[in-house]
């Protein structure tokens, strides 16, 4: 797999979708023998942009219309300058990128107000301001199919991707129809899909004279100096035992205590989870030919792949440790997983019905890998939230080669949680809702990280990083602040209150029942009685304790005149946190109605315009997940 600086695929990905599509594109380019560079926007060496001629960017949007984290920062040490931070420099000429032909794909969700802002910002800067040429107009995918390129089609984001892929490949094939093969010039043709592409670096057993027993060696993580180690100081359930949801107050402090942690309200902690030993054993039992090498020391043929650098690589490097700490085999497989592994369905010995069943399994997996309409894959995997392990248990013919595991297996990524503790507190506190739910599958679905957190005992170690989000600005100081945070949305707001950034803070909190999931009840009521905050609670399934108001937006409406006055006449900041989906939309609608009724805005457009203005100056902040 040769790298070339001429063709470049870059992605900015928060949840992994953009990364997966970029992986598919890169894979197809390799199968067509196109050398290219493939990495996140943040990891791209900015100087290389001068050598780039064909630039393909797939990028999502996060937070307040920002580019994803891996577009802004590099996972590599010592690279403060990223492509994006370079391109945002003011003194660049308008022809800086005129040597580039580019095609862009944005992934977004129109239920968020700043739909596809990520790709739009890239487009505005690279194409309009710095002179890059577009191969074709960019595509904007909408998860809701209500906006963007798939507006009103009922088609999913994958259809938009495949349209993008088609256009991109057409362009390249037209430009480079032939390739050199030995001394000949031959027509560029796609590699037989049954053939597996060897990754650049893969695993092999280390030298034999290095034959120590590594199973008892202490586990460490090497290679990421920004990764920190914490010691768990508290982990307790804060919802009543009879409530369906287990919410944890989780606290840890820096393990070495040398480091003084500084963070601000609105910042997040990245937690690096791992699989349970039970699941690891189940996985190894499924790929039983791995067992004989599971505890042998391994090395990489050509260095550690970039994907493994964030959070550090486990040491001792054994297959068992890699599977436990790095391989996300309990995640839902994406289509790139099938794309890379279907061809390994070839073990007929595990097939009750012999060759015929093997052929059926192989064909089905190939379909999952290549169908552009991902409905079957969606129904089989996404809808029931089926894990990779469960797929492998259904498809026993799949015999995976361990040496390529880090190529085809998704890597465990950290999860981000809002910090609840105040900035001075060395005990970093998180508020974590443990993810467990039922689907058609008998086994309970569990979120890898929240369940990892739920298992941690006091005194145990946890790997983490702190991330500054710059949500709370200096300008907020001593302005009235309206905090809205139902459920776990309360977490970052607690930090805001604890930081005491204003004398005038009003908190709207909501949950289901006063006696079950009213988290932090004592603290909130104490603050309320001392006048530190004004507290307005609503309980959606508990009308006795919440007369006349079901949801936080109902309470907002009830106090509409007063709140609107604060916003319009006293420059108040509105800070909304919690789960994504309908809640933020409902609150937004309520807010617009309030502006219309009490804010002096006659029509919808004027009110909306005012709200947009607020967002622009960070006076309406929405932090949802």
């Amino acid at each position, binding site marked *: *797999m*040769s790298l070339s600086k001429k063709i470049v695929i870059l992605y900015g990905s928060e949840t992994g979708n953009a990364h997966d599509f970029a992986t598919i594109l890169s894979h197809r380019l*390799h199968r067509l*023998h*196109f*050398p290219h560079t493939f990495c996140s926007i943040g990891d791209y060496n900015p*100087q290389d942009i*001068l050598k780039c*001629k064909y630039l393909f960017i797939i990028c999502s949007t996060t937070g307040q*219309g920002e580019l994803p984290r891996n577009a802004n920062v590099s996972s590599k040490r010592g690279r403060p*300058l990223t492509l994006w931070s*370079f391109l945002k*420099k*003011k003194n*660049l*000429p308008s022809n*800086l990128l005129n040597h580039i032909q580019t095609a862009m794909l944005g992934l977004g969700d129109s239920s968020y107000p700043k739909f596809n802002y990520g790709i*739009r*910002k890239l487009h*505005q800067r690279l194409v309009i301001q710095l002179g890059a040429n577009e191969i074709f*107009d*960019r595509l*904007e995918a909408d998860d809701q199919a209500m906006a*963007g390129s798939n507006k009103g*089609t*009922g*088609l999913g984001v994958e259809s938009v991707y495949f*349209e993008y892929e088609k256009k991109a490949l057409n362009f390249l094939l037209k*430009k*480079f129809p032939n*390739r050199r*093969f030995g001394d000949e010039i031959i027509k560029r*043709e796609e590699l037989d*899909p049954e*053939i*597996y*592409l*060897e990754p650049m670096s893969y695993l092999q057993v280390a030298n034999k004279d290095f034959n120590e027993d590594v199973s008892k060696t202490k586990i460490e993580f090497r290679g990421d100096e920004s990764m920190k180690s914490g010691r768990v100081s508290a982990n307790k359930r804060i919802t009543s035992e009879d409530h369906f949801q287990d919410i944890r107050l989780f606290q840890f402090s820096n393990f070495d205590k040398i480091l003084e942690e500084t963070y601000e309200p609105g910042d997040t902690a990245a937690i690096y989870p791992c699989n349970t030993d039970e699941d690891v054993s189940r996985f190894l039992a499924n790929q039983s030919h791995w067992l004989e090498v599971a505890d042998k020391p391994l090395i990489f043929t050509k260095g550690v792949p970039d994907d493994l650098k964030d959070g550090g690589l486990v040491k001792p490097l054994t297959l068992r440790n890699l599977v436990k700490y790095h391989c996300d085999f309990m995640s839902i497989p994406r289509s790139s997983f099938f794309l890379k592994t279907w*061809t*390994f369905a*070839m073990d007929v010995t595990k097939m*009750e019905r012999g060759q015929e*069943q093997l052929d059926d399994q192989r064909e*089905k997996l190939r379909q*999952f890998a290549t169908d552009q*309409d991902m*409905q079957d894959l*969606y129904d*089989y995997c996404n*809808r*029931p939230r089926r894990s990779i392990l469960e797929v492998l248990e*259904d*498809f026993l013919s799949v015999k995976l080669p361990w040496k390529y595991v880090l190529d085809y297996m998704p890597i465990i990524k950290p999860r981000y949680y809002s910090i609840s503790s105040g900035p001075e507190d060395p005990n970093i506190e998180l508020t974590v809702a443990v993810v467990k739910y*039922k*689907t*058609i*599958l*008998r*086994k309970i679905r569990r979120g890898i990280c929240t369940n990892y957190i739920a298992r941690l005992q006091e005194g145990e170690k946890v790997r983490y990083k702190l991330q500054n989000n710059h949500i709370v600005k200096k300008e907020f100081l001593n302005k009235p602040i309206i905090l809205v945070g139902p459920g776990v949305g309360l977490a970052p707001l607690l930090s805001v209150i604890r930081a005491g950034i204003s004398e005038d803070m009003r908190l709207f909190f909501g949950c289901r029942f006063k006696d079950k999931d009213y988290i932090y009840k004592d603290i909130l009521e104490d603050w309320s009685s001392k006048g530190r905050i004004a507290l307005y609670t609503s309980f959606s399934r508990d009308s006795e304790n919440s007369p006349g108001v079901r949801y936080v937006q109902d309470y907002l409406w009830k106090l509409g005149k007063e709140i609107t006055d604060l916003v319009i006449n006293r420059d108040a900041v509105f800070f909304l946190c919690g789960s994504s989906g309908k809640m933020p939309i409902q609150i937004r609608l309520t807010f617009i109605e309030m502006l219309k009724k009490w804010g002096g805005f006659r029509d919808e457009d004027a009110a909306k315009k005012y709200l947009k203005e607020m967002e*622009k100056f960070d006076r309406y902040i929405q932090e949802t997940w």
Partner: protein
Amino acid sequence: MSHYKSGLLLIHPSVTTTPELVENTKNHAASKEVKFVDQFLINKLNDGSINLEKSKYEVIQYLTPEAVTDIKFPKKLISILADSLKLNGSLMGLSDTYKVDALINGFEIVNKPEYRWVKKDFSNLTQTVSIPLKDKKKPCSTKLQNGSTKLPTFKKANALTSKLPSFKKAEDTRLPTIKRADESEVPNFKMASEPRVYKVVDDLIEDSDDDVSSDSSKAQYFDQVDVDNDSIEEEDLIDEDDSSKPMITMITCGKSKTKKKKACKDCTCGMKEQEEREINDLRSQQDKVVKFSENELTEIDFTIDGKKVGGCGSCSLGDAFRCSGCPYLGLPAFKPGQPINLDSISDDL
């Protein structure tokens, strides 16, 4: 150069995933001065959604990834293909497996230079020129009693085959185009039970793009990057007031198959309850199935033929193969012969 033989390319649906195979075939055909004026999926032809014009093609090529001897070809199509060929036109891609059908439908089997079926005019022998070829497929089977007039064809055809000295073995009939160029490049191609792994040889031929290249003066902008506080505001990149539609590529084609709706995280419309009800219904159904099985061992002994799985035969194979109403949905694939133990695979919230 202006004259090409007009060809029809018929493809097996699974070929659509290996476009290079189609490409190879086209290139190969082009070298024989055949141009495929039409390309259809065989199933489209089979289900009648495509009709072929009579005597339109000089060459029909059937393309499938299956080994030639394993091809399962709908026999009824052979006469339809015969109809659509011009006289002395060739049908390629089928083997002697269907030789009888070939002969019945008026083909002569030719081995050189390439194995193919050639449409011959036997009408002078059959005396019934006006009878459409379509009816010819029947004489050897059901309508034999009416087919006396056609029997000569059949005999003649037999006579023809006897003229042919020998039929080549299947491997010779394999179309040369099916061979993939890449196979020769695969260094560690082992047995079929081992995955084929390939180290990609990527290459761009550099001379083919001569657009503006980045001029070296641009490098200077990297020298000044340490100066801080000279960045644009990201927010300014978005013009909120820009009411004009963004210039984006819209997708227009594609199926309008709508995604099954899924309940939102904080569903209030009742869909979530509906989903939960469906799951619970299915579970109680499964509990019944499995309990019943435990009481009456024969019912769960999946090794007993006829009892082992549901009518579709796919229940034990896992969700990817189960029908939409299968009572086993949500259970892992199980081995025939083993009772399903729900306790070992479920846990509670």
